[in-house]
């Protein structure tokens, strides 16, 4: 018969061993704990929700986003040429779906209206079992859907949204933005404006009277006034004004020698076309050539402005003419599938879909708090925008920003923008605290 004795050293050893034993299973089965999160995939497939504008003013942009998502789904499932899976610095994706589950998708129509976008996202989560929502072409929609996703515990990978608020005062733990923002446009564009147009300029802003327009105006004003430019006036124009003539004629007598159009989409097409018709491209003010600047350019929208965009400066998130391996691979895949090059909206959406899938693979689970952790602070490359960081503090991607100019000698109907400068990431990086906001909790939810 043996006598059981416990020494102090033995007790400590036993305690440490049982601690390790208790902790070990958690690290092996972390995907299996907390089964009750919203839309936990149980079968052989996983459903993603693509919420894009299929009707309304941005329907063409939405159609391009959807094409990109369909292509991303194919590549994730191992079909096609693999696209950016071949150039992506993370090699977690194997072309066998996500965590071995086949990727399927459902779509919703945001109509570029916040309430419609929330309703379609809700439907995809509650009825269709979407584990992640992505897409959109408006900051109002992005902020609204991001709020919903935070409430429901479903990750939202934003599409095209440029307002500072998306990852600023309205940032959410469950929301992530790959697209750049108005503040970064200002940081990138400012020095180029000084280089190309000089430091002694007077600007006149026409600004779309809603959230995105205000943040863009503020950002560009900060940047240009920092260069020594003056601001003659900043006039708010109603969204969808159509005819901007009554706002353009005061510019002619204001003493301004630069017109900055803080407009997007149809408003940009109309205001730019009409500014050119009013002879602003040929005008001389203060002994200098009058200039027009469109801080946020989109190739799809530029098509609507036709000849008028030639020589106009602006910024963009990505352009198909880039020659890095990631951009070339994406243009090739998309072009061969659809017969024309992708837009910046398509690129950001495609990348967002891949980034989500990759984060699940790296986390080893679909459990949202773990996926969020995998995305926060993630450094990657090979997706067409150079070395990129998904900053944990605000869920904003930091990467190169393109300063572009309307192409004077286009070689094709798609060759509308010429890259003037690829502004390095360091130059467009800012302190996350300047916009305030609170990410909120990462707690998983049931739905």
């Amino acid at each position, binding site marked *: 018969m043996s006598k059981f004795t416990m020494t102090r050293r033995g007790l400590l050893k036993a305690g440490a061993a049982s601690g390790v034993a208790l902790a070990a299973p958690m690290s092996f089965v972390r995907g299996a704990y907390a089964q009750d999160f919203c839309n936990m995939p149980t079968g052989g497939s996983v459903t993603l929700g693509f919420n894009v504008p299929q009707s309304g*003013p941005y329907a063409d942009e939405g159609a391009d986003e959807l094409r990109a998502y369909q292509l991303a789904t194919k590549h994730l499932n191992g079909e096609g040429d693999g696209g950016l899976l071949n150039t992506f610095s993370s090699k977690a994706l194997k072309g066998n779906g996500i965590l071995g589950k086949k990727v399927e998708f459902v779509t919703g129509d945001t109509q570029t209206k916040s309430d419609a976008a929330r309703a379609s996202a809700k439907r995809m989560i509650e009825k269709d079992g979407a584990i992640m929502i992505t897409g959109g072409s408006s900051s109002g929609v992005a902020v609204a859907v991001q709020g919903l996703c935070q409430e429901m515990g479903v990750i939202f990978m934003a599409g095209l949204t440029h307002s500072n608020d998306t990852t600023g005062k309205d940032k959410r733990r469950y929301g992530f933005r790959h697209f750049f923002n108005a503040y970064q446009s200002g940081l990138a564009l400012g020095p180029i404006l000084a280089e190309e147009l000089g430091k002694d300029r007077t600007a006149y802003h026409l600004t779309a009277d809603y959230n995105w327009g205000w943040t863009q105006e503020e950002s560009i004003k900060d940047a240009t006034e920092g260069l020594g430019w003056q601001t003659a006036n900043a006039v708010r124009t109603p969204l969808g004004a159509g005819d901007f003539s*009554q706002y353009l*004629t005061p510019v002619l007598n204001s003493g301004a020698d630069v017109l900055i159009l803080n407009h997007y989409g149809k408003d940009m097409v109309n205001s730019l*076309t009409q500014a050119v018709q*009013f002879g602003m491209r040929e005008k001389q003010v203060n002994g200098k050539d009058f200039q027009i600047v469109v801080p946020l350019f989109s190739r799809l929208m530029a*098509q*609507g402005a*036709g000849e008028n965009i030639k020589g106009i400066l602006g910024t963009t998130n990505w352009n198909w003419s880039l020659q890095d391996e990631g951009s070339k691979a994406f243009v090739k895949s*998309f072009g061969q599938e659809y017969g024309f090059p992708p837009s910046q909206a398509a690129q950001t959406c495609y990348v967002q879909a891949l980034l989500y899938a990759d984060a699940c693979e790296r986390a080893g689970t679909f459990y949202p708090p773990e996926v969020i952790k995998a995305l926060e602070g993630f450094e990657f490359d090979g997706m067409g925008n150079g070395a990129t960081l998904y900053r944990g503090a605000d869920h904003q991607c930091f990467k190169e920003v393109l300063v572009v100019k309307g192409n004077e000698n286009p070689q094709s109907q798609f060759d509308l923008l010429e890259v003037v400068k690829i502004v390095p990431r360091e130059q467009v990086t800012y302190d996350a605290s300047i916009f305030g906001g609170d990410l909120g909790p990462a707690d998983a939810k049931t739905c």
Partner: protein
Amino acid sequence: MDAILLQLLNGLDKGGAYALIALGLTLVFGTLGVVNFAHGALFMLGAFCAVTFNKLLGLEKVVVDETQTTAWGTALEIRTPYIESWFGEFGSFLLNYSVPVSIIVAIPVMLVIGIVMERGLIKHFYKRPHADQILVTFGLAIVLQEIIKHYFGANPIPQAAPAAVAGSADIGAWLGLGDGLVYPWWRLVYFGFSAAVIAAVFAFLQFTTYGMVVRAGMRDSETVGLLGINIQKRFTVVFGIAAVVAGLAGVMYTPILPPDYHMGMDFLVLSFVVVVVGGMGSLPGAVLAGFLLGVLQSFASMNAVMTIFPGINQIIIYLVAVVILLTMPRGLLGREGVMED
């Protein structure tokens, strides 16, 4: 002074479009008693007549050049418009003048669309309440919009003015106000065009027998009917003419505003305000109110005005409508008895 002159021109220009749309709306309302919410869609369809004509003229011969490739690895396609290879310089001229030339195409097309719309749908709603007429015509407008979006997409499609009138006119030099006061040529053309169309419609109603019968029918269709005249048939033609007027307004507006499927809706609401301010059923009232509201809207957007009354530019039209309806309940030139039963 310069700023006031430019805003006056802007207002007249915009007023021209409002007046043309409101004129058609009033013609339809005055003859058939229908409040046609699809009238803005007719303006949009007119604009798309110009787009379609331009696309047809621009049909291209595609030659695949195997020696060159696109960025996505397919063979490069070299495109040249057929019309240029067939007709040489005349083809280039047609392409350059496609917007004004498309008027010739738009007139019969819009006439047919108007007549088909009236005979095929709207005539079934004459005896129904105004609310039903509004609902069915509004629904029709949405259907037409969606059809256009399906075929042409949602993005605006730019249409160039002919090169000769694409630039700006030096109106400062004309008026002895010094250099630098310029105004787009095409907007001046548009103002002249809208004045000409308005004059033609009034001349048709005033100086032709057909027009006289229509005017009599607008006053008392029952009596005209008792005289053995098929007034309904004439009213159908008037509906077609209203469609043509709206369509032509749309065709010529395309170089000013790149057309998209939604452009009719943007003008419709304002045009209804114009009709109400001018006086329901009054053609001169519609024209007068169109120009008046266009000019007021432009002046309200001047910086000096907006500094004193921020946001006035967005509400001026509705504010004026309220004031006029409070002081003159029938509108500027409204007749007694219209929509008062």
